[in-house]
């Protein structure tokens, strides 16, 4: 046992090193006063200062956060009602086809989603920019919310709803006092997943964004295509910290709910 566990430890350690090395590498060079990702010259905050003095970049950051928060919020509302509708759908075959339709966007490749949304927006005349990006993010976040909320709803014993009705609750009160509180961990998980999907999305946004509007991912892409700028490194340092905070927040919300929904992973 001891022998295998030693090789096991080395193997796991190697995996963790490989997983984290690139991220730490990025952050490390964000403090490099030299202009490249090799030859560490001396410690500096100048790249961080550059991030915060670049109003265009700050605007893009704010845009990205606004799109993420708004899309996650709206997707959560639509998704929660959608999953309640699916769960209490009496007709089994309609319910199953709804579920399959729900999952289409989760398994579809980003490029296909992006391209098809581009066609859609052009056809119905939505101007490419903030609106098209926001709508796309809502659209691809809804199924994730449904997937996070559905297990919670299915876990809920139907006798709880009977019990609430038995104790005098109307349909609205049942929803407010029993169903929503019960699935709350799923709702939060769904919201957080939607948030990270939105923050992380590149391909769909890349297709449906216009000239005047950009999110962080798209901006980093064009910066990276132009070559190495340590401003990106400084950005990644900031994003890393924010991500860690989000993860910790998500973790605690999951812990608070008795039955964790299970860590989700974005596609």
């Amino acid at each position: 046992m001891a022998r295998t566990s030693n090789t096991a430890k080395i193997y796991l350690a190697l995996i963790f090193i490989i997983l984290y090395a690139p991220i730490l590498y990025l952050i490390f060079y964000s403090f490099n006063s030299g202009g490249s990702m090799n030859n560490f010259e001396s410690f500096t905050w100048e790249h961080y200062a550059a991030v915060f003095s670049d109003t265009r970049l700050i605007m893009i950051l704010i845009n990205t956060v606004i799109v993420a928060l708004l899309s996650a919020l709206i997707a959560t509302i639509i998704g929660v009602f959608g999953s309640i509708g699916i769960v209490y759908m009496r007709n089994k075959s309609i319910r199953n086809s709804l579920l399959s339709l729900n999952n289409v966007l989760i398994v579809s490749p980003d490029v296909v989603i992006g391209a098809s949304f581009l066609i859609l927006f052009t056809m119905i005349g939505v101007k490419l920019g903030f609106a098209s990006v926001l709508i796309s993010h809502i659209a691809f976040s809804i199924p994730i919310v449904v997937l996070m909320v559905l297990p919670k709803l299915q876990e809920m014993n139907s006798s709880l709803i009977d019990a609430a009705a038995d104790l005098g609750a109307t349909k609205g009160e049942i929803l407010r006092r029993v169903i929503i509180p019960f699935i709350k961990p799923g709702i939060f998980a769904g919201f957080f997943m939607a948030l990270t999907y939105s923050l992380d999305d590149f391909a769909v946004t890349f297709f449906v964004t216009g000239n005047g509007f950009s999110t962080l991912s798209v901006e980093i892409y064009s910066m990276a295509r132009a070559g190495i700028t340590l401003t990106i490194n400084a950005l990644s340092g900031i994003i890393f910290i924010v991500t860690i905070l989000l993860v910790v927040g998500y973790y605690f919300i999951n812990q608070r709910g008795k039955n964790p929904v299970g860590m989700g992973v974005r596609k």
Partner: protein
Amino acid sequence: MQTKNTKTFYLIPYFAWILLFVIAPIALIAYYSLFDLSGNFTLDNYKNFFTSIYLKLTLSSFWYAFLITFFSLIVAYPTAYLLTKTKHKQLWLLLIIIPSWINLLLKTYAFIGIFGLYGPINAFLNVFGFGETQILFTDFSFIFVSVYIFIPFMILPIFNALDKLNPSLIDASRDLGASSWTTFTKVIFPLTTNGVKAGIQAVFIPSLSLFMITRLIAGNKVITLGTAIEQQFLVTQNWGMGSTIAVFLIIFMVIVMIITGQREKGATSNGKN
């Protein structure tokens, strides 16, 4: 339980979403694939797809996707297995997942530096007397970075399947005289195939359609179906051809999903109920 009115009322946005953003886009893609650059109805796009250029592209795209999936699986299975053996497995799993929450672009960008001509890998190789070699813009770098990006998505479903496995099944196998290897091949692996399939699904399909990593890491050396779609839509503005490739990508996706699809029952009966 609900009356018809209240039911439909709160379901309107959700159904509208299904109609507008699930069904309509697929229909539009199929529709656009039937038109050429000047807007004439034609089947030329489909004819074009079956010329050697696109067939070669499809083949190489599949080959790369296969390699990426294969290496991801090879690395992920032992990792997932060992993770289930750790003390605070949920915490370790979280640590595996965290990197996947860091913006994809940033991680890819990091490799531009790492694999760069003056990056740490070349510096390391230099110590052993290898000259500076161009690692960036090679097949190796493309596959390595892709595997790096996808590995958490392979680990997670396998981990879940292994975690659900009833430990007394392993005891039972040992009790009946099976060696650890036989136990693995006859009990553990068959019971976790659903996790493996889910992982393959999560890696193979996106691998077919990668375009960002190909552009940043592989230069223009590797062309996948994803790159081709992006090229047609955003560079040459040939939406018809782009849609045609997308139609095939969707077909491939459905095939992969059918192959790796799991029966409803199997998903929950990993030996523990």
